[in-house]
């Protein structure tokens, strides 16, 4: 290899030819890193071996180097070809399409995703994707897996994978906006319940329950309410922000559903606290809350999917049929 760099002996390369080859692979590596991946060292070693092999027996001039490198094609196209050829490049391949070298991948088989940018779009595409059969998909942000409600809906035959051309794409804008009503209503219920009961709360309130339903942790009244309020409010604020920023309908519906889910959890915890304080035994309010965390977004997604499908059908079946095709 050192002979390559001096450009004198190995393969009889002229310095110009060696420099061309070095430039080519330097450029290739820049593109490869930009595409985001690991394991390019082996790729480059293979390609270098190919180039050496093709130059074998030639004069090793700059023209020969140009000819051999031209066979490989432009570096950007070559990188793209490697990324495309990766068998599972779509979501979790060794060479992820949207990957960076350090932000995402797998550790001990558990997927992780630490790149926060565009995370709302990634959330949307993983949490409702009827085309993906996997019910558990790598989390769009964080460590581990999350539920693909779209796969659940297909598995239970509630929707068909091709019910909508694009998820929630045909849902009228006012209905997309109306999905915000659900988390806002949950937040309203939380606020009313907290306000009505605040005065009668003791200094220490139950905030943790063991598996058998008995209280095993008390927090101060103030800390508990601040914690629950943050839990209830932050996701709703984020959802409102995504709606106001006019993100794609898909992202906005998912934001509504997720904020509904988290706010329902806060509401359930508050209800459990009041239930225990009033002498109730058991943790059924939390049980109901946990069920709601899954059921409410599922119902919202299925409802939106139905509305989107109905809009497509109105367009195709009752609209101008010659313009119906898209």
């Amino acid at each position, binding site marked *: 290899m050192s002979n390559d760099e001096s450009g004198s002996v190995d393969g009889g390369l002229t310095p110009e030819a060696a420099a061309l080859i070095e430039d080519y692979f330097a450029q290739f590596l820049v593109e490869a890193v930009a595409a985001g991946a690991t394991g390019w060292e082996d790729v480059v070693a293979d390609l270098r071996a190919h180039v050496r092999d093709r130059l074998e027996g030639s004069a090793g001039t700059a023209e020969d180097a140009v000819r051999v490198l031209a066979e490989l094609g432009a570096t950007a196209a070559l990188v793209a070809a490697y990324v495309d050829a990766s068998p599972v490049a779509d979501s979790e391949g060794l060479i992820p399409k949207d990957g960076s070298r350090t932000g995402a991948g797998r550790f001990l088989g558990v997927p992780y995703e630490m790149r926060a940018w565009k995370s709302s779009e990634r959330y949307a595409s993983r949490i409702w994707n009827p085309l993906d059969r996997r019910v558990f998909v790598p989390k769009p942000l964080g460590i581990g897996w999350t539920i693909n409600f779209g796969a659940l809906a297909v598995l239970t035959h509630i929707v068909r*994978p091709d019910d909508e051309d694009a998820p929630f794409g045909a849902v009228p804008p006012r209905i997309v906006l109306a999905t915000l009503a659900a988390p806002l209503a949950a937040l309203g219920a939380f606020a009313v319940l907290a306000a009505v009961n605040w005065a009668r709360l003791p200094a220490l309130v139950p905030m943790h329950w063991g598996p058998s339903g008995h209280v095993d942790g008390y927090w101060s009244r103030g800390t508990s309410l601040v914690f629950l309020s943050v839990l209830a409010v932050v996701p709703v604020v984020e959802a409102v922000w995504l709606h106001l920023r006019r993100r794609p309908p898909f992202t906005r519906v998912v934001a509504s559903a997720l904020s509904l889910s988290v706010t329902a959890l806060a509401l359930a915890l508050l209800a459990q606290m009041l239930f225990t304080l009033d002498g109730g035994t058991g943790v059924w309010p939390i049980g109901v809350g946990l069920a709601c965390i899954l059921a409410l977004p599922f119902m919202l997604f299925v409802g939106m999917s139905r509305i989107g499908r109905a809009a497509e059908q109105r367009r195709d079946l009752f609209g101008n049929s010659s313009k*119906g095709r*898209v």
Partner: protein
Amino acid sequence: MATIGSEAVPSQFRKGVVELAILALLHNDEAYGAEIVDLLGEYPGLAISAGTAYPLLSRLKKAGLITSVWRESPVGPPRKYYRLSVEGEGAFGAMARAWSDMKDAMDSLLGRGATHE
């Protein structure tokens, strides 16, 4: 390759062929999703699950090669029918010619392998 049977066929290879098969099915006639799965299922080498078919249809549609439209069904709820777009017809013609060339070449290569065995 150590495995025998369909696992031995690389998925990319299969995906490309099945894609051409779907274009061929939709070349003269339109069909709905489950129908496409059933029609391909009649050919053991091309059989795919619904879980493979719908992502492929979605990809072909995004690429502009096929279009879809809802139609009333004589039985049950409306169905989404797929058919080739104008670009799809062009792409199908080119892919069919490429396939034909490849098939001749592969027959010749595989035939040569067989005579050596």
